[in-house]
């Protein structure tokens, strides 16, 4: 993305508002939870037609701040001014009617309602001031939806509009959520990590739409961990650290390492970690692996101590391939050999038995048992190995093991008996890696290992990956975070349309080349549907 495409400085639109009162003014916002002082006097302003990036480490208070702005949680102290007027006790409805639309990570869509209803109901709810006894204006509902859908380049026919949101793919839902923001004529659209579930191309489309929003005078506030993306979008940054606003400014004026220094308070090395030290080949041999409608003709191999990256767009089959290697959604055909031995991965436990560890993509829903103890989360896959003669879990061994893992992975926790939800995102991710590690795998499939993890934690996780590879483990990283792949891998495979399109030596490729390879239309248009069947 060329940063000049969307200029951070508003030539005309902002001129009218620049001198006037800003849309939103926060001053001295404090928020405390039991034992945590999540926000410590945050003050900032949001102006119409501007783009903002709210950044900070896990637990720095980003989500809390946007919850306060959107009325989901009250602030303990401080004042909020909207259009120059102070608002006391902001409710979700109040925020909405003031023109603040928030797209949380789950997109805040109602799965069992139709596209039309999801887009247009909010508008009527706001107009009715939340009075539920009001009647719905059906025809206006449709008209609003059509206009909003047009604006985000989605189909407008009744067939599409009457689909339930739960029937839509994730990228489409994202656009529906934005369409809703358009429908309520939002003045500020907040998006909490909107791109973590999207691929590059979908992100580009999103950015397009956001650009249009901004041009029509809407302010956009992103919460994000992706510095590169933020830089390519442009705009202002707001950095939180430990609940304090440490820095704000124009994102183009500062380098990435500067930004991450403000976030973490330390300097991080962004150069390539990898000291290629590849061992014996043939740890993993994959041949002609296929899964109907998802991928086909996938063949590759992995050596001991090698780190292989798999990149691809969301519909490229990379996620399905990763899950097939983990036995979660098994392949239909082809061959997988580990250490020369053919293995059939029909369910996750087969993969574990074959020595394949897996860290799922979505740690909250697919990975962690949030209210269960950290230690239980770590040993949960090896329960059969730590049984005593009575068939019961050996408590002592379980504790020893999880303590060892926590130490090895620098998991910072007061007590391993605490529920895993008491940890920050980065630590939670390390618990997941630790769980995989506990199975003593020969190779590790890391599926989006640093999604939603801040730069500081990312660094720690990268070091862990390198160390594991150094000890002879094979690692596969499936990710759409290209810098992450470039920083860590020996080879990078790019998937397109369910096939492996190209394979690069990581030393000889850069981000641009990878982007190009991802988005290219070649080669086979033949589609996987028939190839797989």
């Amino acid at each position: 993305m060329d940063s000049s495409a969307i200029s951070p400085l508003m030539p005309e639109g902002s001129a009218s508002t620049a001198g006037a009162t800003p849309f939103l003014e926060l001053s001295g916002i404090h928020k405390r939870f039991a034992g945590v002082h999540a926000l410590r006097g945050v003050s900032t302003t949001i102006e119409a037609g501007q783009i903002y990036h709210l950044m900070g480490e896990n637990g720095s208070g980003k989500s809390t701040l946007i919850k306060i702005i959107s009325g989901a949680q009250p602030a303990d102290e401080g004042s909020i001014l909207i259009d120059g007027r102070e608002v006391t006790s902001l409710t979700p409805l109040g925020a909405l009617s003031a023109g603040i639309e928030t797209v949380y990570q789950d997109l805040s869509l109602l799965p069992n309602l139709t596209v039309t209803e999801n887009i247009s109901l909010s508008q009527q709810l706001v107009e009715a001031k939340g009075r539920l006894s009001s009647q719905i204006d059906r025809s206006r509902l449709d008209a609003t939806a059509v206009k909003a859908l047009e604006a985000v380049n989605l189909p407008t026919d009744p067939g599409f509009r009457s689909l339930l949101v739960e029937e839509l793919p994730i990228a489409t839902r994202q656009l529906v959520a934005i369409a809703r923001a358009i429908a309520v004529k939002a003045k500020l659209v907040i998006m909490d990590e909107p791109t973590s579930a999207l691929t590059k191309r979908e992100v580009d489309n999103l950015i397009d739409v956001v650009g249009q929003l901004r041009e029509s005078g809407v302010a956009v506030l992103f919460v994000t961990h992706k510095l590169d993306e933020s830089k390519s979008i442009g705009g202002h940054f707001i950095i939180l650290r430990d609940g304090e606003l440490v820095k704000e400014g124009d994102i183009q004026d500062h380098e990435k390492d500067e930004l991450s220094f403000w976030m973490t308070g330390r300097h991080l090395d962004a150069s390539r970690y990898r000291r290629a030290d590849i061992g014996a080949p043939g740890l993993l041999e994959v041949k002609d692996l296929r899964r109907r409608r998802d991928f086909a003709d996938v063949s590759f191999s992995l050596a001991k101590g090698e780190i292989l990256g798999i990149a691809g767009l969301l519909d490229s089959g990379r996620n399905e391939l990763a899950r097939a290697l983990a036995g979660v959604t098994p392949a239909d055909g082809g061959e997988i050999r580990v250490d020369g031995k053919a293995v059939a991965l029909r369910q996750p436990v087969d993969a574990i038995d074959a020595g394949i560890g897996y860290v799922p993509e979505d740690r909250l829903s697919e990975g962690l048992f949030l209210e269960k103890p950290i230690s239980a989360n770590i040993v949960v896959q090896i329960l059969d190995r730590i049984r005593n003669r009575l068939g019961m879990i050996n408590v002592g061994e379980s504790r020893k093991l999880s303590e060892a893992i926590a130490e090895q992975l620098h998991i910072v926790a007061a007590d391993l008996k605490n529920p895993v939800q008491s940890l920050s995102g980065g630590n939670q991710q390390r618990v997941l890696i630790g769980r995989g590690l506990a199975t003593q795998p020969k190779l590790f499939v890391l599926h989006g290992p640093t999604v939603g993890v801040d730069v500081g934690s990312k660094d720690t996780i990268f070091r862990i990956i390198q160390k594991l590879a150094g000890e002879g483990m094979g690692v596969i990283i499936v990710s759409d975070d290209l810098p992450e792949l470039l920083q860590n891998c020996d080879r990078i495979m790019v998937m397109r349309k369910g096939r492996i399109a190209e394979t690069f030596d990581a030393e000889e490729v850069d981000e641009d080349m990878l982007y190009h390879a991802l988005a290219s239309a070649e080669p086979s248009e033949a589609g996987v549907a028939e190839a797989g069947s």
Partner: protein
Amino acid sequence: MSDFVWTNSTSEDQASMKRIGRWLIRNPPVFTLILIVLVSVTIGAIAPEFWQVSNIFDMARASVVTGLFGLGFLVILAAGGIDLSFTAIAALMMYWITTAVAASAPWMPMPVILVIAALGGTIIGIGNGLLVHYLRAPALIVTIGTSYVIRGFLLTFIGTELFVNIPLPIEEFGKFELWRVQTDTGSIAILPAYVLMLVAAAVVTWWILNRTLMGRAIFAIGGNTSIAERLGYDARKVQVFVFAFSGFLAGIAGMLHVSANRIANPFDLVGTELTVIAAVVLGGARITGGGGSVLGTILGVVLITLVNNVLILAGIPSTWQTFVVGCFIVLAGAVFGTRKSA
């Protein structure tokens, strides 16, 4: 942009299969209707008396109370809750009001009595809703609690005896005829006017669910409470409303029960909850909340009434009744089983 467009990339055949499948899933009453037709045709073939007008009238009459309960339960279910207390509310209203009216105001006209019963039911319903909201416990558990309390209150403090001295207006209301047919055997078949109450309740429920913001809010809360709250829907209002509405209908159902039966038995009604739940589920409502329709519920009620009322006609020993209903529920569960594979 084409990647963001919802496309159906499967072949023609699969597409149409998928469409039919999705259509069925989105229109569960069709399945209920099929079952009704199947049962009717089978029984009609075995016992031609089935098609008598009087039988149809009897079915309609027998559907009223279950239907009112079912509509109330549907609305609660759509909002993601479950209610086990509606029969207790109905029994309390029925018995309390009937005995009180008989004792002190036997002249009171039925519309007034109905309004009082509906109000009483609504008040208890509001209590239910507030408890469910503020105790933050599953509605199933809370309403088990309130049903014990309500019923215990009725039987401890109001009375336990069969009451037959029904005030005239109540009795007259139940006798009011909509339609009378003379059968060839010399007996008469009457369609009582109170079946219109069910029709009216169905229309009102449909209107609320589909034409008001409350209706959408109910489905929103039932689909995902925390998201709906974030979007500005007031979960407390919705919860209080659905329980109040269910109580409202239960109060009316209780009075209709007395009116139709001309006796007030405080032990009546309680125990029919599972039948009502079965009816609503057979009508295709999602037991997990956020789905369901008025039409489906009415069809479900008809199906249950059918099974409960025609076994003697078909020459099936009534001992089979429970078994048949159980199997239907399992079948419905399997057909509508929308439990997402985790």
